[in-house]
């Protein structure tokens, strides 16, 4: 709780002047609004009526100076002008309050959004693998909004309530103690009622919200499963299902509205009874000459002014609760530790000689992913990595760009320990194309040009050519200007991979990593891309994760990973002479020929086929 408030305060910093100003302004505005009934009282009692004015001497002498009662009575407009002037004053304060609280709360929201965005960007790779996007977005948007609204509206409103009570009470007490006490009788009652009621109703709010959530998810499931619904001809069933939840939502929300109806009905009753009591007592006292007519009017005005903020208290408290919950959810994000980008400071040139010495790596949960990996690569060489799912292939290449940190051993790039290299610098020199790359919702051109500033059109086309996506792009209606994603073309998996590849090729990285990148691209295109890559003048040190024998056999060095261990490494020629995974893959080609010759007549499933080959 304390931590949450601390977080809140830290984001409110920098706008202290506005918060303070807004609260003072709302106080002054309240004061000016309280003065108006006072003026009307004076006009009624002492200008129109005959009661002598009761007020500080200097004001009295001022009135005497300008001509006393008779002058004011002849010029009743002066009272009117005073009212208008006070209202304008009040308006100015209200305006300032509105402006300052808007600036303060919007700055708060802006600061929080930006820091959330930045924090999320620097959370480690691992975090983003596990995260639930929808939930996070919810926190970054509606939770921030909940807090902002609280700060913009309620926070200041509480200040207003305090000012109101603080200022009204003394005035009333000075004027008439009996009336004051009667005016205040119901206030604690309404206050208590408001709080108890909103605490009780919380569950009804929650139930209604939850049902609405269910309604959306049933709708969502129906829409995304429209094929299943139609194929089983289940429209009638679906309509019944939806009707049920739709009706439930209607009834539960109606129940909530009815509860609110009770609240407003009862609190209206209490407030009006209070006003009625004040009027009744006031009438009695005034008719007995114990208070003036103006005082009577004043009390009946003040009572209304007092009750309104009290009635809002319950609401404010529920909203405070909501804001605190939202704050807690946001705090959870900020509590996640970010990557240390400044772990090393070395920013020397990177050429691409890489040496792994006894490198081990484990996840946070202690699961060992890589064990004692050693190998070395010369600048410009191509390394192919082969291994089953979960053997640590991806982790191995992620180590290279600092997406993961190795626990033991050493990795040297051009003789410099990887850990000592500035992380941003490192990533600017190691280009990874992920297996499931993300394209931003911009044009194809912008996506390809993302990694480099001031990129030329010819560079984009060249990169797209090498990535074998140029022809595909030209077929789109707007060519390179076609937006990607929901608003534009939907690309297939293989096309996405190729755009992502082009994006990496734009920048001449000394180290390139393909994380099973071309898996969704057909074999021929794959070969064409690799051929084009080889032709590039400045050859990068390239890591390719693949299962395709054609790709593997092309590499200078082949690494076979099994269970986090490097079981085989060397050239194609070397590995086909060894027993092992690589050789088995290699022999598949002859198996294919056999299959084609023999027509696979007896094979029902290819699973059996493999078992037979192994045995």
């Amino acid at each position, binding site marked *: 709780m304390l931590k949450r408030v601390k977080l809140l305060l830290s984001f409110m910093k920098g706008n202290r002047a506005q918060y303070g100003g807004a609260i003072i302004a709302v106080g002054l505005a309240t004061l000016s609004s309280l003065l108006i009934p006072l003026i*009307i009282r004076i*006009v*009624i009692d002492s200008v129109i009526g005959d009661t002598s004015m009761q007020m500080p001497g200097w004001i009295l002498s001022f009135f005497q100076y300008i001509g006393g009662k008779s002058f004011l*009575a002849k010029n009743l407009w002066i009272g*009117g002008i005073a*009212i*208008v002037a006070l209202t304008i004053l009040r308006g100015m304060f*209200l305006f300032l*309050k*509105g402006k300052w609280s808007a600036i303060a709360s*919007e700055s708060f*929201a*802006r600061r929080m959004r930006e820091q959330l965005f930045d924090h999320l*960007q620097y959370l480690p790779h691992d975090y983003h693998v596990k995260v639930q*996007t929808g939930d*996070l*977005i919810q926190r970054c948007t509606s939770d921030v909004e909940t807090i902002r609204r609280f700060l913009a509206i309620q926070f200041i409103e509480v200040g207003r309530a305090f000012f109101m009570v603080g200022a009204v009470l003394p005035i009333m007490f000075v004027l008439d103690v009996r009336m004051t006490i009667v005016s205040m009788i119901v206030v604690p009652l309404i206050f208590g009622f408001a709080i108890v009621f909103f605490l009780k109703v919380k569950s009804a709010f929650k139930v209604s919200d939850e049902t609405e959530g269910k309604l959306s998810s049933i*709708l*969502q499931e129906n*829409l995304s499963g*429209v094929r*299943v619904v139609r*194929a089983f*001809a*289940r*429209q009638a069933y679906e309509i019944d299902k*939806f*009707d049920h939840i739709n009706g439930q*939502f*209607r*009834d539960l*929300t109606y129940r909530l*509205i*009815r509860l*609110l109806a009770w609240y*407003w*009905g009862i609190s*209206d009753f209490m407030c009006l009874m209070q006003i*009625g009591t004040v*009027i*009744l007592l*006031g009438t009695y006292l005034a*008719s*007995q000459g114990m208070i003036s007519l103006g005082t*009577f009017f004043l009390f009946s005005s003040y009572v209304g002014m007092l009750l309104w903020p009290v009635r809002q208290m319950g609401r404010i408290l529920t909203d405070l609760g909501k804001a605190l919950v939202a704050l807690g959810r946001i705090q959870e994000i900020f509590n996640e530790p970010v990557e240390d980008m400044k772990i090393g400071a070395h920013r020397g040139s990177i050429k691409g000689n890489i040496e792994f010495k006894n490198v081990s790596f484990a996840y946070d949960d202690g699961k060992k992913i890589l064990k004692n990996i050693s190998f070395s690569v010369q600048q410009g060489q191509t390394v192919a990595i082969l291994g*089953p799912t979960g053997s640590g292939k991806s982790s191995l290449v992620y180590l290279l760009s600092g997406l993961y940190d190795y626990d033991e051993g050493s990795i040297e790039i051009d003789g410099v320990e990887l850990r000592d290299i500035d992380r*941003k610098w490192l*990533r600017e020199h190691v280009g*990874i194309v992920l297996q499931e790359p993300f394209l931003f919702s911009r044009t194809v051109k912008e996506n390809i040009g993302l990694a480099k500033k001031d990129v030329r059109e010819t560079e984009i086309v060249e990169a797209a050519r090498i990535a074998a996506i140029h022809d595909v792009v030209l077929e789109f209606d707007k060519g390179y200007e076609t937006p990607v994603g*929901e*608003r534009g073309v939907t690309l297939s998996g293989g096309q996405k991979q190729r755009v992502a590849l082009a994006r990496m090729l734009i920048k001449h990285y000394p180290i390139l990593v393909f994380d099973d990148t071309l898996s969704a691209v057909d074999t021929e295109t794959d070969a064409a891309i690799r051929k084009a890559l080889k032709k590039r003048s400045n050859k990068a040190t390239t890591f390719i994760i693949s299962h395709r024998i054609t790709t593997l056999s092309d590499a200078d060095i082949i690494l076979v990973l099994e269970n986090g261990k490097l079981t085989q490494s060397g050239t194609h020629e070397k590995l086909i002479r060894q027993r092992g*995974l690589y050789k088995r893959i290699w022999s*598949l*080609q002859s198996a*294919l020929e056999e299959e084609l010759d023999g027509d696979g*007549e007896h094979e*029902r*499933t*290819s*699973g059996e086929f493999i078992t037979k080959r192994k045995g």
Partner: protein
Amino acid sequence: MSVFEEQDYKKRFDWQLWKKLFRYLKPYKKHLAVLGVVVIILAGIDTVFPLMTKLAVDSYIVPRTFEGLWKFGFLFALLVIVQAVVVWLFIAIAGKIDMGICYDIRKRGFERLQELSFTYYDRTQVGWIMARMTSDISRLGDTIAWGLVDMIWGFTMMLAMAVVMFVLNWKLAFLTLSVVPVLAVLSLYFQKKILKWYRIVRKSNSRITGGFNEGITGAKTTKTLAREQENLREFQAMTSTMYHSSVRAAVLSSMYLPAVLTLGSIGTALALWYGGKGVLAATISYGTLLAFISYTVQFFEPVREIARIFAELQSAQASAERTLSMIETKPDITDSAQVIKTYGTTYSPKKDRWPEMAGNITFRNVSFAYSGGQKVLTQFNLDVKAGETIALVGETGSGKSTIVNLACRFYEPTEGEILIDGVDYRERTLLWLHSNLGYVLQTPHLFSGAIEENIRYGKLEATDKEIEGAARLVNAHNFIMNLEDGYQTDVGEGGGRLSTGEKQLISFARAILADPRIFVLDEATSSIDTESEKIIQEAIEQVLAGRTSFIIAHRLSTIRSADRILVIRDGRVIEEGDHHNLLKQKGYYYKLYTNQFMDEQETRLINA
């Protein structure tokens, strides 16, 4: 990102649209009538309270007597009770209408969504429909139930107050009310402006949501591109727009309120000045003066309300436009009146008249083009005998899926005809065909709920035994029993708690339970482990046995076991035959097969 975007909308008031919308009020006529009375009473009471003050002043305070004050007290208490009851009624009835209308429109919308054909779903995003069905409809209910009622309340109250004021003292009334027209114009002006800015705020808010979405889903890619700083800069541009437009909107609102208050105070000042003179001249009573002062303060509340509602009507109209356009969309594929007469509708089918289906399917000179005009199939012919298994292979976009969608009558041919058992399928109901259809998708879609419910989807009246039987047939029984709650295990939203393979098996069980004559399988490209693949392969064989089937095939094992393989390219069959014949042709299929063979075997071997 577009899902998050706000749409712009027309400016003009569309009377026709509102008339259509008001039709939804019909079932609530009685409620509306009561509500009307309630609102008028409410406005009346609001008008009477200042009169009570006048009564107190003129009958008791000024004459300096409290005789009969109990009567006054009694009257006041009575008014308070009536007010409380009326407020309760007001909220309860308006709430009832609000929720009722939302329910009705939502229901109508959902029913329409069940009728619209796939061409509609192809061009409409789920997010768009969701927004229409949730927030737009809520906004409509809000505006119709509360907005209109508030407006009636406002007008009635203003009218009542004006009448009372004129009766009390017409000159004073005339004078104090002279500010009202100015106020009305000012209010409308401000509200429109404020709303315009809030719309900009909402737009930039959607953009920020989109920004977060991209930032989070693209975080891994961002790291590899080392683009964090640029991303933040771009995001800051969005938050900056948001900041400026929000502050702008808030500042405008903060200007509006003082303007209203000042105008109101001019009214009060006029009342005090002219009324005070009247009191001095003894032409106006103290009570009347005080009542006028109260009225001038009270008068401005409804003006503000009405201005706000008027301004909001615009966005409500946009909601109405979008929602109604969805509800009024005509489904492309419907049964003809003649067919309905013979075989019944989807909701009350005459099943006894339905013919048995054998499962012979014939495409006769079928052409198909999307509504955009893009031709997918031209003069396509195909003859499938009952019980035959057809595998369709080819690249994405070759037309495989279209053929299947046509066979299922999810699309209808733009030219030519499709015959089932020798009869054009348009001469039968959609329900007849779909009741005989089994369908398993590449990414199996499950509904949240228990496994049992999901399987039962294939045959609603199935017994538990039948369900278990279907599960056993596709080898799903064992893994289901290993789950904590067995068949009652909740699969989570979209089946998220199960693996893809498990979801596949359940969708097979569901299809088997339906016992369809025609079966469609859209096979997954993603490789699964050997063990599950074997299980799934066996399940497929179970499902296909004895049924006419179409398979959009990716796995070699399924392709090979098909009776006939069609190689589709650009909407035409370029090669046709069984596996052996096609291999011998050494054409496209040969290439496809060898590539696929290597890919599949390599993956399998590595992960064996």
